[in-house]
């Protein structure tokens, strides 16, 4: 269970997120909104990359908003940033192994599942991650987080740069992972229709504030889109 109350956060004294509250539990929780709405700031704050200036973040009842990012990751909270974020001088296999340090099951099993999701990565294992295409780098970043076997997965625009085939596959797999492994997925996306198709709850941010939140089956796409035009 992931619970956030009264969250305020930003950069260099500038407040971006204002009084954001949410609760997500073993479900896909969609975070939508226009550029600059605060989606990435929210995910960075949850991952401990930036520290909130007010409010609380609780994970399974424990406060985690004062913990450094590596301790938050060790709790099983995986984060895939928006920017293509791989270790460029390490090979694909090494990048994935780093994610694997935190998981419990055998690495081989986890890698096999990953190759089901991204078969192309298997052909690139010995290649330096910095020499991959943008989309392939994105696959490695997502793969590294999945190797961690997280109980919470924070995904910031994971489909940016992926081909239609992989975009479709990734949405399906994210839904599967959440459903079958009881993983809480907080998913920030630009692809509104596909995101609403797999999310149980939706949270629309506008200029750092909550414009709308609720169950996806009780919210219309028009209501969501209104949050983009404020």
């Amino acid at each position: 269970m992931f619970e956030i109350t009264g969250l305020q956060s930003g950069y260099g004294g500038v407040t971006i997120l204002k009084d954001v509250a949410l609760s997500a539990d073993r479900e896909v929780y969609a975070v939508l909104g226009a550029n600059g709405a605060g989606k990435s700031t929210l995910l960075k704050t949850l991952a401990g990359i930036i520290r909130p200036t007010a409010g609380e973040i609780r994970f399974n009842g424990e406060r985690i908003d004062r913990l450094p990012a590596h301790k938050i990751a060790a709790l099983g909270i995986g984060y895939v940033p928006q920017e293509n974020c791989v270790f460029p001088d390490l090979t694909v296999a090494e990048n994935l192994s780093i994610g694997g340090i935190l998981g419990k099951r055998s690495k081989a099993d986890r890698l096999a599942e990953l190759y089901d999701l991204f078969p192309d990565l298997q052909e690139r294992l010995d290649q330096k991650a910095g020499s991959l295409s943008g989309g392939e780098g994105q696959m490695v970043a997502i793969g590294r987080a999945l190797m961690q076997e997280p109980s919470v997965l924070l995904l910031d625009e994971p489909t940016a740069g992926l081909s239609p085939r992989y975009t479709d596959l990734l949405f399906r797999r994210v839904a599967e992972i959440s459903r079958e492994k009881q993983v809480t997925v907080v998913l920030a996306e630009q692809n509104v229709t596909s995101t609403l198709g797999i999310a149980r709850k939706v949270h629309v941010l506008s200029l750092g504030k909550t414009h709308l939140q609720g169950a996806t089956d009780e919210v219309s796409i028009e209501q969501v889109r209104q949050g983009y035009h404020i």
Partner: protein
Amino acid sequence: MTVEAKLSIAGLEKSFVGRKVVSVDRLEIGRHGIEGLIGPNGAGKTTLMGLITRKLKADAGTLIYRPGGTEIDLRQMSMDQVARAGLVKTNQVIQDFETLSIRDSLRLALAPAEREQFWTVFTKRRKRDAVEAEIDEILSHFPFENPNGDARSAGEKKLLDIIRCLLLKPKVLLMDEPTAGLPDDLTRAVMTLVQKKVAEEDLKVFIIEHDLDLIWDYCAHVNFLADGRLLCSGTPQEVKDHPVVVEKYMGVVDV
């Protein structure tokens, strides 16, 4: 009458650590207003653009650019010379002048190129005033939260990159996944502006994109690249229906 291509590519090859990433026998760009380049992740699309802009050096092949009346062998040119000749590329991965505000970043794109004195657009009021109207006009199309402040979100930075390239008044604009990270309404606003420039300024556009609706809606001609090779080209409908494109790129895979 056949329109002469702005860019002719022949026998172009590039390998990285023994792996052939680009192997394009023949490709003509600039016969149509907006042309698309689609293909799976790792097909070599960005590498192909890197070879055209001379960010990367080709192992073999020719790259002939015709900005108007003249014929230029791009292999003899440096990256900045290519850009000065009007062949400009937007970036897939965000590139930003972190210390410049949105407005200053746009001023820089409009800075006078003569004698390399670009800073005069900041220091000389007359030169600064000369570009303000154009900046205001372009900003009226796009809802930056604070044009006098920094570009904050990844989407704003991406948008700024595209606008900067348009302000350079290119003859050929290469766009590498311009819409990744942008919401639908901004994507359409960008493409509407690009269409206007194509119609009014004879701009030619070559665009890499995974948003296939955008490709089908805006491109007059589409090329499909896979494993570094150009496997088919044609109208959007021809490419959409091509069995190789369907097999290698589109549709849902059963897993």
